[in-house]
Structure formats: structure tokens, C-alpha cells
């Protein structure tokens, strides 16, 4: 038996098919993964993401510590609640995890992946040496992601005036506390929406209210196809400790300036950048029938081979799409081997669907 979120019984009652995800028993779907996907793109749905790890960071040197720990620079966070996406790298420039950090009135709040929780906490603790900083894991919090074009409007109708007002005021990629909740306008679907952290004992009744208001529960299956369409990386699949952010479409998350900021992994990245030797992560579109899958081989004429890191069927585009790591000079065509046959694919930016619309 895996770990369970505070909403485990609700998932069963809602008819979820449960699967193991990084040691957690999580809902894969509640009937049809494809229907759930469309529900989020066309209206909105709710995901239990309570398995994710929330860490609050306090102390006089919290900022300096994060500037040491992360490839992105928390100096970029100028207003309360503003969020930053970053890689946390090892000395070799490999990605230990990808995460979101919010600027808060107590310091910072960080949300890291569930499957990487143990190694993340151990790494962060080890990196606190010499810094006046305290890490406080908030395992008592549950987290619900409500995503889709109608997510904010429908959620606002179910909560207090103060929370509704906050939901209306939040800017994209901003999160703020309201009472014992923390409400953020963030997500992992390519749609507008919210991620709400709240005390675990309030989670079941809030989920029931959301579902009662027609905000359907959505499983990890649709979460994966939604994030793939949005071109968002999945840790452990699209990048890991042996992958440079430069090879994972995360170059934009590296804050090179100021040059004197010595974050972990910087010198390795500088060597890679100077050598120009990193492959790139791109999107692939299969125009024929079939399904692209992780680990299928990609062949680029004259340049060599690459590999699909994530592949599936795109319910929005009604064709198969993938993320693939390919030689840096790859143009707009490649081929993929599926069961011994080579299929032509179109190479595109790793971003297929935004706000319900195809962008390829």
C-alpha cells in the first residue's frame, strides 16, 4: 500500500481507478481519461495534488540561500505572492528537481514534486550549511488544483467573500494566503486556474463542494496529457539528474545575470554553454495514425538520433504528440521508429495547446 492523501476515500467514492504514483495511491481517472481532459480544456476540473511537497523557508538569509540553491533568481520576485519556476541543480548541472517558489510575507514557499520529496529535502538540508535559514515542511496541508477556463469564476462562487475577492485579483503566477488557505493562480495544464493549499481536514468538504458545483474530478491520466499538450516537463521523464536544463527546454529558467551569483551547477552550465554541446527538447507531431511513446528512437537525417521522453495521444489535437530530446541542429522534420517502422514527424516548439487552442 502506498501513501494516501487526505482525499483517498473521496477518490474511491467518486469511482476512481487508483494507481501508484511515486509511492502514492492516486486516481488515474474516474471513468474516461479523455473526457476528463476535454472537461478541463472546455470548462474546468479539480485535481488532488496533495501528494506534492510544500516547504516554507524562513530566516534572515532565506533569499541568499535560495539564490545559492536555485538556477533561477528569486531576486526576480518583486511583489508579494509572485511565483518563480526553477530547476534545483546538482554540481554537474543536472536537474535534481523542478519547482515553484513564491515570495511570501514570512519568506518563501516552495512546492516540489512528490516522487522526489526525500532526496529534495535531504539536498536542501545539506545546502543550508553556512546559511541562517529554516525549512519547514507543511505536510499537514492538502492541495487542490482547479484548472480550466471557468475554474476561477466557479471556485469564487463557493468560497468566502475575502477568498473570492482574492481569486479575482490574483495575477497569473501569483499566490497569496487568505486565512489558513494559500491560493495561487498557477497550474500544470496550460489553462487558467488555481492551486489551493489548505489544512488537510478541510480538503474533503471543499472537494465535495467543488464536485457538487459541477467541477469534475480529474485524474493523473488527464493531468499527463494536459501538461504534455502544454509542453510542460514531467520530472523523471523529460529530465533528471543527468539532464542539463539546457537540454530540457529550461534555458529560460537559468538566471545568468548577475554573473557573480554562484548558484549550484553554474560552472557546469557555463562549460556546457561555451561548448554548445547540449541537445534540445522539442515537440513532435505525428501526422499519421499511431501513438508516440517515451523511449522511441527519433532519427534526424544527417544529424543522428534522439529519443522521445514523453509521448501520448493529444485529445485536443486528435493526433499523437511527444516531447523528444534531439540534436541541437534539428530542423522541422524527423522520423520516429514505432514497432520497427519509421514514421515521419513534424518538429515543433514544445508547446502544442494553450488556453484551449492549438498553437502548432
Amino acid at each position, binding site marked *: 500500500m502506498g501513501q494516501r492523501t487526505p482525499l483517498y476515500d473521496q477518490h474511491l467514492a467518486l469511482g476512481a481507478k487508483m494507481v501508484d504514483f511515486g509511492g502514492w495511491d492516486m486516481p*488515474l*481517472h474516474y471513468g*474516461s*481519461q*479523455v473526457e476528463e481532459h476535454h472537461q478541463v480544456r472546455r470548462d474546468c476540473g479539480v485535481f488532488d495534488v496533495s501528494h506534492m511537497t510544500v516547504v516554507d523557508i524562513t530566516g534572515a538569509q532565506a533569499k541568499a540561500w535560495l539564490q545559492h540553491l536555485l538556477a533561477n533568481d528569486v531576486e526576480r520576485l518583486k511583489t508579494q505572492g509572485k511565483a518563480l519556476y526553477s530547476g534545483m541543480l546538482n554540481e554537474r548541472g543536472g536537474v535534481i528537481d523542478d519547482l515553484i517558489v513564491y515570495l511570501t510575507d514570512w519568506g518563501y514557499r516552495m512546492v516540489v514534486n512528490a516522487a522526489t520529496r526525500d532526496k529534495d529535502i535531504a539536498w536542501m538540508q545539506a545546502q543550508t550549511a553556512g546559511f541562517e535559514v529554516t525549512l519547514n515542511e507543511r505536510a499537514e496541508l492538502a492541495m487542490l488544483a482547479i484548472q480550466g477556463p471557468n475554474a476561477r469564476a466557479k471556485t469564487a462562487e463557493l468560497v468566502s467573500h475575502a477568498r473570492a475577492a482574492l481569486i479575482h485579483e490574483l495575477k497569473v503566477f501569483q499566490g497569496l494566503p487568505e486565512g489558513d488557505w494559500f491560493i495561487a493562480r498557477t497550474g500544470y495544464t496550460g489553462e487558467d486556474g488555481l492551486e489551493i493549499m489548505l489544512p488537510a481536514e478541510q480538503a474533503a468538504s471543499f472537494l465535495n463542494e467543488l464536485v457538487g458545483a459541477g467541477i469534475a474530478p480529474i485524474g493523473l*491520466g488527464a493531468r499527463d*496529457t494536459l501538461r504534455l499538450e502544454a509542453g510542460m516537463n514531467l520530472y523523471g521523464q523529460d529530465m533528471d539528474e543527468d539532464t542539463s536544463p539546457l537540454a530540457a527546454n529550461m534555458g529560460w529558467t537559468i538566471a545568468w545575470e548577475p554573473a557573480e551569483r554562484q548558484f549550484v551547477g553554474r560552472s557546469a552550465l557555463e562549460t556546457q554553454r561555451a561548448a554548445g554541446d547540449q541537445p534540445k527538447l522539442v515537440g513532435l507531431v505525428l501526422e499519421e*495514425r*499511431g*501513438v508516440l*511513446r517515451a523511449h522511441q528512437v527519433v532519427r534526424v537525417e544527417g544529424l543522428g538520433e534522439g529519443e522521445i521522453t514523453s509521448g*501520448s*495521444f493529444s*485529445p485536443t489535437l486528435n493526433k*499523437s504528440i511527444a516531447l523528444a530530446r534531439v540534436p541541437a541542429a534539428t530542423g522541422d522534420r524527423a522520423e520516429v521508429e514505432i*514497432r520497427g517502422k519509421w514514421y515521419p514527424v513534424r518538429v515543433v516548439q514544445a508547446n502544442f495547446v494553450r488556453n484551449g487552442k492549438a498553437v502548432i
Partner: protein
Amino acid sequence: MSNIPADLRYVASHEWIRLEADGSVTVGITDHAQEALGDVVYVELPEVGKQLANGQEAGVVESVKAASDIYAPIGGTVVAVNEALADAPEQVNGEPYEAWFFKLQPSDPAELEGLLDAAGYQAVCSADA
């Protein structure tokens, strides 16, 4: 609880088989199989005229989640395939016993004796669960 019609035959790899009046057999995947796969988005069928041995890979069914092989439940020659599944693979989820994959002309009708009946297949599914 999945639906297992009593008038069909089955194999443990989750194909159903209907014995036709003309001596051919029609093959599809069971309700239990489609349920385990989830939303089917692509079906790869064998070529008409292909000779298949008992248990040989005959095609592929892909759901959003994963690809899964379809096997020939008996040896035989492919005499027809259900082209409609190419455009509407979701029929496999909606009507698993209507959405047939291919028809075989058995090479050895004695192999039909080895197929499971509904009760035998029910036992396989119970052991899976």
C-alpha cells in the same frame, strides 16, 4: 464487474471469439480488456490474407495510457478486418463486443476446442483482479 456474453468463446489474453455459421471466427477484445486499457485511441490491424499461428501477434491496440498487443486466438488466415476502427477506435470502449478487429478462417478447426467458455474466462478475470 465486466460483461462476458455467454454465446462467445475467449482466450486468457482477453480476446473474444465468435464462431460464425460459415466456419470463420470473428475476434475482438473483451469488456475486461477495454476497461483495463482505458480510452482506446488507435488500432493496428493485420493485413487480409496474412497467415497467423495460434497465439501470434495479430495487431496492436493503443489507449492513451499504453500499447497492448492483440493475439490470434487460434491459427488461421485473416479474411477480413474492421476498417471502421481506424476512424472510430473509441468503439472498442463503447461496444467491445460489436467492435470486432478481424475475422480468421481457422487452419485447424480442432483448435476451437481449446477456447474458454464464459465461465472459464470469468475465472481468468477473477484471478487477474
